[in-house]
């Protein structure tokens, strides 16, 4: 990180001077690269926690009959080596919440978005650097509040990451989480506020600060993804903010937005009337479904941009790929009801949402076919980033296809709230987002730290993760078919689930291998950040604008003038060009379509 100074000192024509003291440079920084890394490292820490929660869930599902006295140190979780059921509910609630919002929204969007947007649009920084710093310092308290909920009162929120009321609205409905759910709401409000500041920055920077020559239709797929993600976030998160505050009022100030009349809870008549629990589900999923694409779109963007650099071939069907992203983003606002097919909402609404859901499969398939066409007749160089990019394609196919099962209203009757759904979203949403982040990390690492990650270690990490990921999540389809419900502390209470225990044990062992493999990544990341091989400015011979900056870019990103862009970032193997790639900033009119993109 110390190299930043060298380049910063050379920065010309930049109004803002590089801060000199450690605290303003690395802690309360306004530099998009530092903020990006802050977000990224925080998200990694949160991933570690959420991953450990998942491991504990798996332990319980594989061997609920065994005792683990060594876990008694988790005083809220275990009594005499046996897990408490309410702790199990906290585990899956917090695993989902942290992974979805504080890891898989944060690392790709806030982490890489901040890191890459100015480098890819050709700007010295984000449009509003102060707001950007503020956004991180709003995010961090959110993390602290969410994590602290484990230690306050009887423990963390236990109503599921979807927090469906009345379970989440009535403080006595889940004994042991009176404060937990409230802190969950407060943590989410911090998160949303931070994400909104980030989103404003993303949209403004991408729309207004593109360097000369960089038209929208010359943007890399990552930029398109970041732009759409920011728009989705700005339009959908307010619904959850409103809903969360309404829930807070229901919990503490006697309102009844989500609590209907005539409820009886543990023998006591509930003193609320007139609310609707369905209203929460509509508001939650109005955010929740676009949120799925907030996680996924960046990974799809990274995949395209990484793939071209290691295929040495232009992206196939750029317009179709951009169109598909636009279509996915638009349709993501009209599919939320597919989470509610059996909720009791009108069956006609279910039909309407099924139409949107089946439609969204079309642009998703278009993306897959275009990736395959990009691979066709290419010249593939298998480096770590490429492995992850292809991993995203593989997971996108596997997870996308099971979406077709779930999108059919009638079939969803059997699959809803079973492990089939868990398999589906872990493959497509969590898996694609996670693999995308790993790929982006290996690919853009030189722009983070000026060094390369170790390629051999990266490949070993990839293969362990890839195979263990499939072994963990694919069998969940089978137990889902067999009817295995989600969020079950002890599945073997049910006769019809008893014979699934061996599969659950297989899944658990795979999950442990998957978890342990991540140690390789942490070692590689931190070792390489300080000791890795020094990177050249453009170590992958990539064509994008960000590769014209020094590695790592100093304060202000380009030591001299900001370069002008003359073509799209996909000019690889252009006939007649002297090298097998043409930088986006290269003015030479080479190739059959050069300059026209």
């Amino acid at each position, binding site marked *: 990180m110390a190299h930043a100074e060298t380049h910063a000192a050379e920065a010309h024509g930049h109004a803002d001077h590089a801060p000199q003291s450690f605290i303003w440079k690395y802690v309360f920084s306004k530099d998009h690269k530092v903020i990006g890394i802050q977000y990224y490292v925080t998200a990694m820490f949160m991933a570690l926690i959420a991953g450990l929660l998942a491991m504990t869930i798996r332990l319980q599902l594989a061997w609920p009959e065994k005792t683990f006295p060594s876990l008694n140190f988790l005083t809220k979780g275990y009594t005499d080596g046996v897990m408490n059921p309410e702790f199990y509910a906290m585990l899956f609630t917090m695993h989902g919440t942290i992974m979805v919002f504080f890891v898989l929204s944060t690392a790709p969007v806030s982490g890489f978005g901040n890191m890459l947007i100015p480098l890819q649009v050709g700007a010295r920084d984000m449009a509003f650097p102060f707001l950007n710093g503020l956004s991180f310092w709003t995010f961090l308290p959110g993390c602290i509040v969410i994590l602290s909920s484990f230690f306050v009162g009887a423990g963390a929120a236990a109503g599921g990451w979807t927090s469906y009321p009345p379970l989440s609205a009535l403080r006595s*409905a889940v004994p042991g989480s009176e404060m937990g759910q409230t802190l969950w709401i407060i943590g989410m409000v911090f998160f949303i506020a931070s994400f909104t500041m980030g989103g404003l920055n993303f949209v403004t920077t991408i729309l207004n600060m593109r360097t000369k020559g960089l038209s929208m239709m010359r943007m890399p797929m990552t930029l398109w993804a970041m732009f759409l993600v920011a728009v989705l976030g700005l339009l959908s998160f307010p619904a959850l903010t409103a809903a969360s505050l309404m829930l807070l009022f229901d919990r503490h100030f006697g309102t009844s937005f989500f609590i209907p009349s005539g409820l*009886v809870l543990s023998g006591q008549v509930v003193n609320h009337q007139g609310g609707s629990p369905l209203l929460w589900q509509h508001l939650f999923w109005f955010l929740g479904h676009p949120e799925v694409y907030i996680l996924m779109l960046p990974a799809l963007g990274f995949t395209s941009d990484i793939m071209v650099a290691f295929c040495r071939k232009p992206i196939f*069907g750029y317009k179709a790929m951009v169109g598909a992203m636009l279509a996915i983003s638009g349709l993501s606002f009209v599919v939320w009801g597919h989470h509610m097919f059996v909720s009791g909402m009108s069956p006609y609404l279910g039909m309407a949402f099924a139409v949107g859901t089946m439609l969204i499969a079309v642009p998703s398939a278009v993306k897959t076919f275009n990736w395959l066409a990009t691979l066709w*007749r290419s010249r593939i160089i*298998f480096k770590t980033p490429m492995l992850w990019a292809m991993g995203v394609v593989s997971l996108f196919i596997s997870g996308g296809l099971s979406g077709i099962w779930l999108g059919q209203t009638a079939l969803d009757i059997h699959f809803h709230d079973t492990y089939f759904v868990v398999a589906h979203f872990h493959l497509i949403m969590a898996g694609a987002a996670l693999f995308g982040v790993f790929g982006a990390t290996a690919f853009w690492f030189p722009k983070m730290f000026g060094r390369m990650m170790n390629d051999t270690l990266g490949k070993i990490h990839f293969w362990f993760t890839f*195979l263990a990921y499939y072994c963990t999540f694919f069998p969940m389809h089978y137990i889902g078919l067999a009817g295995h419900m989600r969020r079950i502390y002890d599945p073997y209470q049910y006769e019809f689930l008893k014979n699934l225990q061996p599969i659950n044990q297989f899944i658990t062992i795979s999950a442990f291998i998957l978890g342990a493999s991540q140690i390789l990544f942490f070692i590689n990341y931190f070792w390489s950040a300080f000791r890795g091989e020094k990177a050249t400015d453009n170590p992958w011979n990539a064509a994008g604008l960000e590769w014209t900056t020094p590695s790592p870019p100093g304060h202000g990103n380009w030591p001299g003038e900001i370069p002008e862009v003359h073509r799209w970032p*996909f000019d690889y*193997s252009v006939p007649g060009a002297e090298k097998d790639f043409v930088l986006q900033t290269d003015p030479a009119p080479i190739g059959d379509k050069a300059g026209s993109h």
Partner: protein
Amino acid sequence: MAKLQGLLFGLATLVLVVVATAFFAKEWLPPLKSDRIAIDHGIAVTLLVTGLVFIATNLLLAFFAWRYQDAPGATAAYWHHNAKLEWIWTLVTAAIMFGFLFNALAMWGQLQKAPPADAMLVEVVGQQFAWNVRYPGKDGIFGRTDAKLVDPGNLNFIGLDKTDPNAADDVIMPQNQLYLPEGLPVRVRIRSLDVIHSFFLPNFRVKQDAMPGMAVETWFTPKVAGDYEIACAEHCGLGHYRMRGQLHVVKPDGFDAAVAAALE
């Protein structure tokens, strides 16, 4: 090594999935005991189509990754656009999706249409952590309920108002015991006393959330007499995992006797 990695790509997934399917296929759908066979057919068709697409795309991925490896003298094509191809795969995918959609909506329509007039009515009310079952009696009308009258001590789990004339012949079963006659369509009215539960009959392809403040009906026909399980499919609190009920499907002529015996 690079060649191997390329090939491994799609093939590893394919092999894993094929082996897993062969290994786990014995735990397939729970045996079907209702008239909802259309759902199983829909699943089979979807499995076939998505399975073929899965195999085809993974083989392509493996083949491309193996065939187009970097090697001395290898070049990549400068080929990045083909409108005809784009249209073909967009329209073919759209056609397949419309096929699925049409089929799914037709099935959905069948499941959601009005029940036959002779369908038997029964009410299932979820609560933390049990299922309450009530039959309307000869009048076919459920008596009024009131939250204030809930009195588990006197077996009035759902707060039946006994002063209501319609309530006189209502039958409230012991908790978690549901009896249904074989071969007769049954309308299940699903409610909740407290939080959201989900009434799930794995063997019958029936699942309907019990939404507080709402009474939602679903109907189906049990086909085979026997004892089955009722599961709660929506997280409803720390006892969610043990919210297990029993469904007894009995021959129609023995139904009244079976209910009477259960009430003993």
